[in-house]
């Protein structure tokens, strides 16, 4: 665990904000999972539960002008980077008030005004986009950074090597954040991966660290260093966050598995304990060292629950997506 100095008021507020953001993700995902399990939500739904610390830690040091690219498991990243929960819920329910007007859904939630270049249904799809954003920032001589959030499964896509190389050659302001939850769909990633993924970054001379991805502060600190380096024009960094996916690959997993399994219930339960679960852990720490009281946490719980329920109501009350829109938005100023 990272060493903490005397916690001042500002720090306390910051930590509570981190906690609130993680909790918002957790409660949102639980609610989305419920809807998906009940068959209320169309399409494939991949939840971020258990991984909140890595997305929140990573995005906590970013500005709206910074970019992130995300994955098929993107709700948590969207909320972590400041995406609106109502607009996200409306999107998941396929409504015209959705952040993508109901056209993208779970695998494509994006808010470009907040630098969220989108969840992405193509595993590894965000890698080149993030690298290109880094290139674009550099060409535009801007101070922004581009953060690529990707999974351990995605790390086996060759675009990673291509982009690690280019980001290093030209010192693009890119931070490569590997969320290593050990799983790619129903495959144990280690079984199909040779060596340590951080070594792939080191092979191109890139600074690479592995952090406890369930410790939001550890992630935040590694990110701070990387972002500082990137903003100073010193190039990219690689951060591996070790974490775990508590829910199934997708909410319909049981149907897909047809009775088979790729992990034990004990393994899952071990990641839900107060020492492991990123939210429970951070709650204890907030109480012990962060100057927060149980009442603070309860208040947050209340606020978050309300926010989530309002988001559901908003989504349900919204009008369905507008099919005509498809023809307006495929191109700028041009019919398809």
């Amino acid at each position, binding site marked *: 665990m990272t060493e903490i100095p005397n916690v001042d008021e500002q720090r306390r507020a910051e930590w509570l904000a981190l906690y609130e953001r993680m909790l918002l993700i957790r409660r949102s995902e639980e609610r989305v999972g419920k809807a998906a399990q009940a068959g209320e939500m169309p399409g494939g739904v991949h939840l971020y539960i258990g991984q909140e610390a890595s997305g929140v830690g990573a995005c906590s040091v970013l500005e709206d002008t910074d970019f992130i690219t995300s994955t098929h498991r993107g709700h948590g990243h969207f909320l972590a980077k400041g995406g609106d929960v109502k607009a996200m819920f409306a999107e998941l329910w*396929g*409504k015209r008030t959705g952040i993508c007007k*109901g*056209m993208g859904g779970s695998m*494509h939630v994006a808010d470009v005004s907040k630098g969220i270049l989108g969840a*992405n249904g193509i595993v590894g*799809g965000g890698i080149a986009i993030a690298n290109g954003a880094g290139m674009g920032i550099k060409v535009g001589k801007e101070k922004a950074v581009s953060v690529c959030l990707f999974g351990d499964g995605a790390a*086996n896509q060759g675009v990673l090597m291509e982009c690690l190389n280019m980001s290093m050659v030209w010192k693009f302001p890119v931070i490569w954040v590997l969320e290593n939850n050990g799983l790619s*769909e129903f495959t144990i990633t280690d079984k199909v991966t040779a060596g340590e993924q951080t070594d792939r970054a080191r092979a191109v001379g890139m600074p690479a660290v592995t952090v406890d991805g369930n410790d939001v502060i550890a992630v935040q600190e590694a990110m701070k260093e990387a972002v500082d380096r990137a903003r100073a024009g010193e190039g990219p960094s690689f951060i591996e966050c070790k974490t775990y996916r508590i829910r199934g690959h997708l909410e319909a997993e049981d149907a897909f598995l*047809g009775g088979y399994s790729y992990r034990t219930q004990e393994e899952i339960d071990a990641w839900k304990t107060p020492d492991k679960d990123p939210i429970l852990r951070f709650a204890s720490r907030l109480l012990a060292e962060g100057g927060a009281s149980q009442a603070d946490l309860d208040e947050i719980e209340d606020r978050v629950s309300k926010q989530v329920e309002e988001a559901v109501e908003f989504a349900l009350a919204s009008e369905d997506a507008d099919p005509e829109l498809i023809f307006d938005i495929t191109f700028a100023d041009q019919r398809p």
Partner: protein
Amino acid sequence: MAKMRYIQAINQVFLDEMERDKNIMLFGEDVELAIFGDTREVYKTFGPERVYNTPICENSLTGMAVGAAAAGRRVILHLMFGNFVYTGMDAIAHQMAKLRMMTGGQMDLPITVIAGYGGGRSLAGQHSDTPFPVLMNIGGVNVVTPATPADAKGLLTTAIRGNNPTFFLEASGRGGDSGEVPDGEYLVPFGKATVHKEGSDVTICAIGTMVRPALRAAKTLEAEGISAEVVDPRTLVPLDEDGIAASVSKTGRLVLVDECKDRCSAASHIAAVMADKCFGDLKAPIKRVTVPNVSMPYAGVAEMAIFPTPEKIVAAVKSVTGELAGASA
């Protein structure tokens, strides 16, 4: 004959063929636990010596299929979603489709690539494509689109035993459809269209997933006095031009139904061939019921708005058989 689900028919062929021919190997992402259900038990039965559950890297997987075939194996590659054809496109277009020709015919490439295609399930833009056109256009690979469990069995068996690269495109959303499937060894030849329903006023040529809505449309039309023949090419490469032409020449009208985006679709191509070969017999414009040139939206209402439906097929047919409908009304 046994009643079987589409996906079961496929699964059974994998098990039977790999049992029959020890030289067959299978690989792909998550094939061990069989995310699509079609490779269920394959790993347990034949792996890990003949079955590889791979990392996520489609670009290499398609090229590796070529290498494994060159090394003498009979290869099955599961690409999961049809969209990943684009991800693995480089080696498909440049190696799999061309190597036999470029080497002067030195090598056979007995490769079956299987992938699920099509929309209608709110999987949004990146998981709903119907990648026939690119596969049809590159040349050098067969493209197979079974609509029924029986054809799935027969065409997959033919694909696996054949000596050419074949894309076996399974209807993702239709895995649960069931139908009668012949017992024992059953092969359906490539390049032979089938007539699902005979008719005399119009030919509805429907591909893969579109056979079902086409048959529904035909039923509705029948009730209104329009006799539609529903033809299913079953394989797009090779394409049974003569078989389709025979139907078109008989009915004098053609409506194509294809889940591809319209531009350069399989529907467009068949329309072009018929506008050449059957021109003299045509009594009306050739109509296409396809997906417009946009990516598939997420929301169900939006998706359905652009998806070919029985209603749209009926409307397209009526637009070319106006007088007939009037006559029988």
